[in-house]
């Protein structure tokens, strides 16, 4: 069973997405901020990470930068799920090696699940 780590500070989104992903059959772990997320990435070494950008304590970009420093986790595909999609942000995410960027208003949980399948099948 593929392990997916969801790092997101908004409770409603966490509950909805984890319910959807669990129903599809993924092993879903949760973290409510970047700091906790980074810890869990190292501990679980998930197959894929869903990462929010704006979070308390440690933001998504910082998490990605930290991941780069640890070769065990540096290559795990990261899908950004964010409420914005500013060109500068997208560029930065690309630089940091994000696999994809999903704006939450443009996708729903079902479509997020489809994206996940695309990147997990690739690996």
């Amino acid at each position, binding site marked *: 069973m593929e392990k997916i780590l969801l790092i997101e500070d*908004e409770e*409603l*989104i966490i509950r*909805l*997405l984890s*319910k*959807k992903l669990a*129903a599809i059959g993924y092993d879903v772990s949760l973290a409510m901020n970047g700091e906790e997320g980074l810890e869990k990435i190292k501990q679980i070494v998930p197959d894929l990470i869903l990462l929010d950008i*704006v979070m308390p304590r440690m933001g998504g970009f910082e998490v990605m930068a930290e991941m780069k420093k640890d070769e065990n986790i540096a290559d795990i595909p990261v899908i950004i799920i964010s*409420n*914005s999609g*500013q*060109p*500068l*942000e997208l560029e930065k995410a690309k630089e940091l090696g994000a696999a994809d960027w999903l*704006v*939450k*208003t*443009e996708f*729903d*949980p*079902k479509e997020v699940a489809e994206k996940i399948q695309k990147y997990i099948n690739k690996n």
Partner: protein
Amino acid sequence: MDKAINSNNIPLPPAQPLSGDQSLRERELAELSEMKARLEEANGILEVRINAKTRALRELAANLEKEMKERTEELRRKVAESENSRVALMNMLEDMEDLRRRAEEEREKTMAIIANFSDGLMFFDARDRLALVNPRIENYFSINKAESKNMIGGRISDIVRFAPMSPLGEVFAGSLERVSRRELSLNEKTVFEVSVLEVAGRAGKIGTLLIIHDISREKMVEKMKTEFVSIAAHQLRTPISAIKWTLRMILDGDLGPINDEQREFLDKTYKSNERMINLINDLLNVTRIEEGRQVYNPVVADIEEVIRGLIANYEDMARQKNLNLSFEKIAPVVPTVKIDLEKIKLVASNLIENSLKYTPAGGKISVTLGEEDGNAMVEVTDTGIGIPAEQQDRIFTKYFRSANAIKAETEGTGLGLFIAKNIVEAHGGKIRFVSEPGRATKFSFVLPPAESD
């Protein structure tokens, strides 16, 4: 004098033999009268000769005087002439000096403008060799006067080899290609915008001007605005996306079964929420357009594929409204275009959605892809309510909605066509329409072909 004439000039008659007294006397008388006659004759000749000499002398004197006068006159004329030419020469010299001074002044003015120009300027001559550098360049790249002087005469490929100027190498691979507003980051804080202009005079190419404009401040402001919009969008989008996801999952049955009435209400709520999302997106787009920081990521694309994909998205909606939505490629070959996919999709969506919104049931919407003057052309034709003639000139204005559009459909921001026009024009294309109120409307946009480079 007379004596001299007598003794020298008058021949005496030869002595004759005498014959008797009377005859002697007669002979003497005859001889005397003969002598007298000869004397008189000689006198006459003398007189004539003297008169002639005197006349000749007088004539000579007169001639001499005349000649003197003429010579003097000539001399005077020559002196006057040479004086005139001297003055003329002086004037010419003065004029030339004046011209030279004026040219020098103009040159100084031009140089002062170049030196004090707020942008960095480098001018390359017709042979692409650096001819001029202004102090702003020295400023921008932290080089001194001597170093900048050293670069004169070099090609751009030589110049970028000089370490402080090497950042320019990012823009120019080896030659001075035409560049328009290319960004160049010198460091974290300094960002330049590089443009290259060909300078042509009456006789053709004079040289090439490289302009470097400091946009660090704009970049900083842009970043701050991006941050602000990002925060605002985040604040607005967070609750809206939570609503969207919740409704979607309930509607998909992920949170348990719902009855038909619940489904109907939730479906309508979902659609309202989608409108709110579109409104926020439109506002974000407008902000970006107005701040001139809409970022385009053009890629070479097959426009047919793009349009076909979009049509598929609207087939359901068309069926629900009982509208015939069709697509046809009407030119055998449509030029390949270089476009920002998302933004051109937005343009086409706006046009198709407008047609769907403003065409009464039973109507027709046909989307065609063709070619016009080497450009790709997309046309969306409908049998809708049309645009009132007196409001047609305002149709691309921000927030404008025509009177009949408001009557037909209360929802709408009046931003769609404003955004569409900006996006098409940013691609170097054009958007236009013809409309017959109450009967039909046709919107067309053309996109220039991708440059084959």
